[in-house]
């Protein structure tokens, strides 16, 4: 539900370690809303999200320790350089980084040599890459990525595919909202297509790991 409008109902899925879920659907079908609900940023009108069998509401901060969410916006501060951005955002996410670690993560996402440039001098794609570095530094179990491929070049798409692949083969999970095809070697693949909402009796939304 967004405002008075029913976006989707009868959404039901479960992900187990190594599981990958691609979320597709036309613009405005509620992909972002669903991802924000999964993160716990929004409350579903009806239904529930469970993490390891427990409601995420009752887990609270414990649940946030297990997820990394990359939204539409990069959460990159224009005034800070990539190194500061990464170290601060990782620090807030509960995993403090040494300078060297941060540097390594940034060179992995192709920002070597640009660590000390304030983010306002970076291109949109480079900011996106800088945000991606967070995935590497905080080894959380579940990645929730919203339109992560927007404004990225081919090399970066390949980078994301390999990052997700590695993550899945280590037993991680990922939920990605995107229209593009992702070629991921490891893990089990699911696709969920959201259709423009048709009101019907909503079933509880399940989410387990």
């Amino acid at each position, binding site marked *: 539900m967004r405002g008075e409008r029913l976006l989707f109902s009868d959404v039901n899925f479960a992900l187990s370690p190594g599981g990958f879920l691609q979320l597709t659907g036309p613009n405005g079908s509620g992909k972002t809303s669903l991802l924000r609900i999964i993160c716990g940023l929004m409350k579903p009108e009806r239904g529930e999200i469970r993490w390891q069998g427990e409601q995420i509401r009752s887990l609270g901060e414990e649940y946030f320790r297990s997820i990394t969410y990359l939204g539409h916006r990069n959460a990159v501060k224009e*005034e800070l350089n990539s190194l500061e951005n990464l170290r601060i955002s990782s620090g*807030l996410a509960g995993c403090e980084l040494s300078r060297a670690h941060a540097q390594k993560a940034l060179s992995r996402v192709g920002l070597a040599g640009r660590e000390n440039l304030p983010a306002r001098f970076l291109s949109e794609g480079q900011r996106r890459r800088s945000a991606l570095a967070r995935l590497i530094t905080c080894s959380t179990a579940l990645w929730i990525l919203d339109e992560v491929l927007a404004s990225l070049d081919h090399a970066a798409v390949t980078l994301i595919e390999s990052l997700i692949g590695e993550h899945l083969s280590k037993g991680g999970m990922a939920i990605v909202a995107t229209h593009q095809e992702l070629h991921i070697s490891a893990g089990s693949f699911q696709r969920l297509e959201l259709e423009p909402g048709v009101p019907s009796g909503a079933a509880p939304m399940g989410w387990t790991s």
Partner: protein
Amino acid sequence: MSAPSAFSMFRWIVARDLTLAWRRRADVLATLFFFVIVVSLFPLGIGPETQLLRSIAPGVVWVAALLASMLSLGRVFANDDQDGTLEQMLLTPQPLYLVVLGKILAQWLVSEVPLVLIAPLIGLQFDLASDTLVILFVSLLIGTPILSLIGSIGAALTLGLRGGGVLIALLILPLYIPVLIFGAGAVDASINGVSSQANLSLLGAFLVVSLVFAPWATSAGLRISLE
């Protein structure tokens, strides 16, 4: 990866906001200059009538402080909301209360402390005695954190609204009234040669209460605004 503690996250927030403020010095200076200029306009407008100036001084300085804090409050969460960092803060594995408290502390250090420090200096324009200047300083020192704390509730609630700035003022200024009364009252008492202790104690009590409740209310407001 070291185990995160609540305190280290609090430190990250404060350090981050101070760095950001340093890189955006113009915003901070604008608030300070606003305060200085508003307060200085009164002696210029009224002329050298020391008796009158002395009696209006507490009110003028305090009202200017309230208005100056309105200026900086709109920014506390709005910038972080625009680039998505606020969303990430809501997803930190530590209590949101701490995040909010850290941001308020940083806002106070950056926007209010300079104003508190300069207040005795501009108080000279009103021909205040030195012990009154001390009371002015102390009352602002206790009172301005309350402004930041209460104001953050308004900032959280009006987040993402068009014309949020005006709305903050309508929402928050009435809540500032007790602070204004006791803050200006303390200085007034000192001018009239009475003890300001009662007023300052009440301000202190307000500070404690708002320290407990405001971050909590702000957290709730942020969750609602970002839904």
